[in-house]
Structure formats: C-alpha cells, structure tokens
C-alpha cells in the first residue's frame, strides 16, 4: 500500500509499505478515509521529537471504514464507518478505567525511552515516534487499530467524513483544554494559537460557559476564522503587546483561564524570541516556550493555565516564580480520546460544533509532501491539509 513516510528532518515521501495485518485479537484494520495533518506533526518533521526512524509512517488524526476485525473485537464489524482517537487506550488499566486514556499503561510497546526520560511511559500514539510506541501512522491506505473496541468509535449517520475526521484529535484536544480550565460562567478565556486545536478550544470554552474568548495569533486568516467561526476577539501578537491588551480587555485583572495551544515551536519576537530559537537550534533546550511564558504572565491571580500544545523535553526561562506566587493552577496533557469522542460526536450531530471548516486543503495522499509544506509554511491560508488515501 501507499503511505507517507518520514525520511529525515524536513523530508517526506510517499512510499510502498507492507499492508498492516491483525496482530492481536483486539485489533481492527481500517481503510483510511480521511487523514489530517496536525501541528504536532511539525515537531516530528522539524526533528524536535527524537526516536523517529527513516521510513516511519506519520499521521494520527483520521477516520475510515473497518475492513477486518480480530477475534476478540465485539463492538465493531467490517463496513462500520469509524473515527479513531489519535492516542491509544487499552480500556483495562486503572488510567483507562478512570478515563485518562492518554496515560494508558499498556499501549506503548516501546516504553523504555519514556521511562528513562519522563520517569514513566505514557500511551502509544499513532505515527508519533518510537518513544510513543512506533505505531505506524494514518497517512496510509490502511492502518491497524489496537484495542479497536476502545479506540475506534462508530460515526453516526448525519455526520460527514469532513466533520468526523477532526473528532479524532483537534476537537477532543480543544475540548480537554477548555475542560481542564474549570471554566465558570462569566470567565474570560485567552487562547494562544488559532490552529485546529486552538479554534476547537474556543468553541469548547463558549460551550462550557465562558463569556468572552480572546484568540492570540499572528496569521490574519486564522484570526479571521477565530473571529468569524468561533466568535473570539482576535489579538495579533505582532501588532500589539499581548499583556497590555489582555489587561485592558479584562479591567486589569488578566484572563481567568489561559489555554496554550501552540507547543514547543512557538514564535517569539525581539531578543527573547531570537534567544529561544538559537538555544533550540543548538539543542541547549528542546522546546521554545514563548506563548507559555506569556500565558503565565498574563493569567489573573488564582487563574488556570491549560496546556495542550505539545512539549517534548525541557525548556528554559520557565516562569515558575510567577506561577507559584500568583497561585496559578497549571493543567496539561495529551487528550484522552476515548473519553471525549462519543460525547463530541453527539455535539457535532446536534450542530453545537462544526469542525469541517478546518479542512482548507483536501488532497490525495500522493501530494502529501506538498500538503505538509503548505501547512508548515502557512501557504494559501492552509489551516489543515487532509489526505484521502483512497484517492
């Protein structure tokens, strides 16, 4: 079958790879219908996530059709249209039973690296380096889904493929970001990053009771989407001092809840931005944290900072003093896909959230490298390039 493979830093190619096979009784094989690029893929592409190997199939946000199931799969059958969470749970360990699927004990078959670097191994993620399991990704014609009864959720009638694909990752990640904030009625929520996850976090914040949402980005087309689609107040950080504007918009208090949806490659300005880039390039720090620093600085006393932008290693100049002395609550994590997807599909069916506008660039898989180039360099207003491996 054809698949989009990581062949080195900033090098992707479409290759012939072996078809997946059922390896476990609880596996299913899914024919991929739609598979989206994600901002966190750029960290792989740019070489900031170690343990990638040449030939690894990338992609983790997808939907498709079940074509084969293992003997212990009971809730799915061939022909089912499903959306698959990007982060895998087993459904049986304590973390999964409590709904914290991204902390699953059993779905990362290569736990040694994480146990050494992080202290403990977390869940496996499709197409996201060998530290996260070495599981082949979804930019392929077919994919094996372990523990399919847990991780593949049937898509109800009335929800289009273009809506369902984002229920795999962007919608649940955005929802979890807002949920971790503990939003109360009347809260002002500031969201750093107006990509797919940030935009979905803005929708979620309103649905959970926020009175105002402020979108912080630098790309006019994304700020326009935040304003027009998500009803947020746009704030261009290249045109204004973020802290000053946020203080003005909140009567000097600062936002009650801040969501960081950018991650380890956030862009900075001036000397701080240059310093971060140089340190990361020289591998003196693994992650850049401009937006996280801004969020902690801007957040009101006693507020909450929720982090869903992906960080991988260590970062410099983390303002722990500000967080500690302002009594902030910091919450973070990879999304618990299986906990959220059924509920979010219901909300999509009800029309409360329609993520299909994220899909700006539908493309065949054969144009995968170009799709990533458009996405990475924000060409042609690309919010998400989405591949249809079947053609």
């Amino acid at each position: 079958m054809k698949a989009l493979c990581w062949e080195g830093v900033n090098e992707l190619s479409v290759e012939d790879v072996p078809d997946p096979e059922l390896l476990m009784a609880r596996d299913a094989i899914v024919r991929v219908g739609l598979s989206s690029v994600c901002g966190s893929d750029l960290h792989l592409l740019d070489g900031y996530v170690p343990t990638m190997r040449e030939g690894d199939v990338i992609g983790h946000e997808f939907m498709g059709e079940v074509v084969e199931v293992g003997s212990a799969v009971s809730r799915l059958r061939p022909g089912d249209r499903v959306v698959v969470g990007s982060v895998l749970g087993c459904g049986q360990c304590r973390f999964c039973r409590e709904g914290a699927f991204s902390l699953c004990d059993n779905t990362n078959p290569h736990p040694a690296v994480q146990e050494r670097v992080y202290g403990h191994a977390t869940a496996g993620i499709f197409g996201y380096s060998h530290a996260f399991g070495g599981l082949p990704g979804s930019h392929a014609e077919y994919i094996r889904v372990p523990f399919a009864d847990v991780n593949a959720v049937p898509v109800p009638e009335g929800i289009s493929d273009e809506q369902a694909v984002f229920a795999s990752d962007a919608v649940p990640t955005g929802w979890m970001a807002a949920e971790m904030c503990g939003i109360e009625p009347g809260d002002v929520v500031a969201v750093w990053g107006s990509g797919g996850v940030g935009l979905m976090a803005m929708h979620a914040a309103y649905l959970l009771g926020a009175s105002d949402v402020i979108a912080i980005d630098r790309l006019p087309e994304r700020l326009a989407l935040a304003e027009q689609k998500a009803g947020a107040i746009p704030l261009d950080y290249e045109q204004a001092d973020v802290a000053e504007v946020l203080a003005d918009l909140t009567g000097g208090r600062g936002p009650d809840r801040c969501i960081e949806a950018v991650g380890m490659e956030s862009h900075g300005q001036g000397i701080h931005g240059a310093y971060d880039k140089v340190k990361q390039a020289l591998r003196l720090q693994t992650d850049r944290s401009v937006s996280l620093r801004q969020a902690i600085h801007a957040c009101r006393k006693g507020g909450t900072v929720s982090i869903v932008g992906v960080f991988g290693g260590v970062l410099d100049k983390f303002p722990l003093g500000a967080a500690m002395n302002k009594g902030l609550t910091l919450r973070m994590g990879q999304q618990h896909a299986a906990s959220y997807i059924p509920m979010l599909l219901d909300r999509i069916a009800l029309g409360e959230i329609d993520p299909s506008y994220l899909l700006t660039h539908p493309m065949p898989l054969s144009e995968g490298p170009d799709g990533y180039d458009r996405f990475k360099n924000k060409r042609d207003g690309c919010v998400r390039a989405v591949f249809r491996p079947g053609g």
Partner: protein
Amino acid sequence: MDPKLHAITTTASSAASKVVRRIRGDRSGSAPPTGTSAITVHRPLDEVFGALAEPGLLSRVVPGLTEEITESGSHRFTWPTGDGGTGSAEYRITFDHPECSVLWEPVGDPGPLPRGGIVCAAAPGAWGTEIHAQLDETAPADPPETDQDLTLTPDRLVRTGLRHLKQVIETGEVMLVDLSSADRSAGQKRRTEKMSELLRTGGRP
C-alpha cells in the same frame, strides 16, 4: 501517612525483601547479575496471584524463557544462554500462598540457569496489586523484540517481562507493534542501493 496504608506498604516491601533474601540465600560470594523491578496491576491480589499459577504465564516475567509442562507435571524451561544457544532444565517452583510469593530455581546444579522470584502484595488505595520480581543470572543473547530502545540491562529485562505479565492479566494479550515499522522503507533501500553502487563503481558510469 494513613496507618493502614503504611502497614500495607511496609508489609509489601518486607515481603519483597524476604523473597530477595531467599533467592540470594546460598549464593553469597559470587554475586550473579541480578535484575529487579516492580509493577502494579489493576486487579485484586487473589486474581493476580491466581493468574501466576496458570501454565505459561509465569514465564512471561522473563522474556526468552519458554516454559513447558511435562507429562509428569513438572516445569521445564528453555533459556537462551549468552552464546546464543539454548539450555533446558527442570525447575522447582514454590508457590507460597500466605506470602503470595513464587520462587523458581533449577533442580540440581544451577549452572548458568536463571533463578528468580515474585512477590505480590495488595497495593494501597484502589491500585490493585503490586508485583515485585527478581531474576538472577545473565540476560538472554537477543533482546525482546518489543523493547529495543535502550541497552538491555538485567533490570530492563525484568521490567519488560513484568509489563508483559501486566498486559496479559489486564488485557489478555501483549501489545505488539507492526513489524513493518521496524523494517527499512523503500526510500532507505533505494539510498542504500545508490550508495552501494557508488562505492562499487567509484561514481564511474
């Protein structure tokens, strides 16, 4: 700390220490490579300890060790030795129900064959059961396929085995990764072929 919780954790670590002492027992003077690790299984103690008595499950603690039950009911293990060969021996396995421990050791001259032990204890809170394991003797020649990321130390060997044991008890099977992801891609193969051609011809047409 809650007195009950303290008592439970003290009991667990005390039991683990006893097993370690019993395993090491008569081996003072020539310390073999020893791997130790612990893991928590989200199942009750009686279920976990009961599962260890199932044929084949115990051998999952030690990757590479293959357990067979002979007609007479005794356990035989095949163990890859350091030079890549395999050894086979009869083992004595002792299930100690009050202590929830399992010890296994080769009958007769232990030679290079592994001996080891497991102790189970109820974990505090609602975590389930702690399993503490120790394995003496050398690691197998080939690392287990599912955990090639780091140098295989005795501790890592036992850790991998315990993870597999936990997966079998909790989910019924060991999590596997597609072999294709460890294979070389077409792009890599093409590059290797080009490089080989270049080396062979020196760049001449």
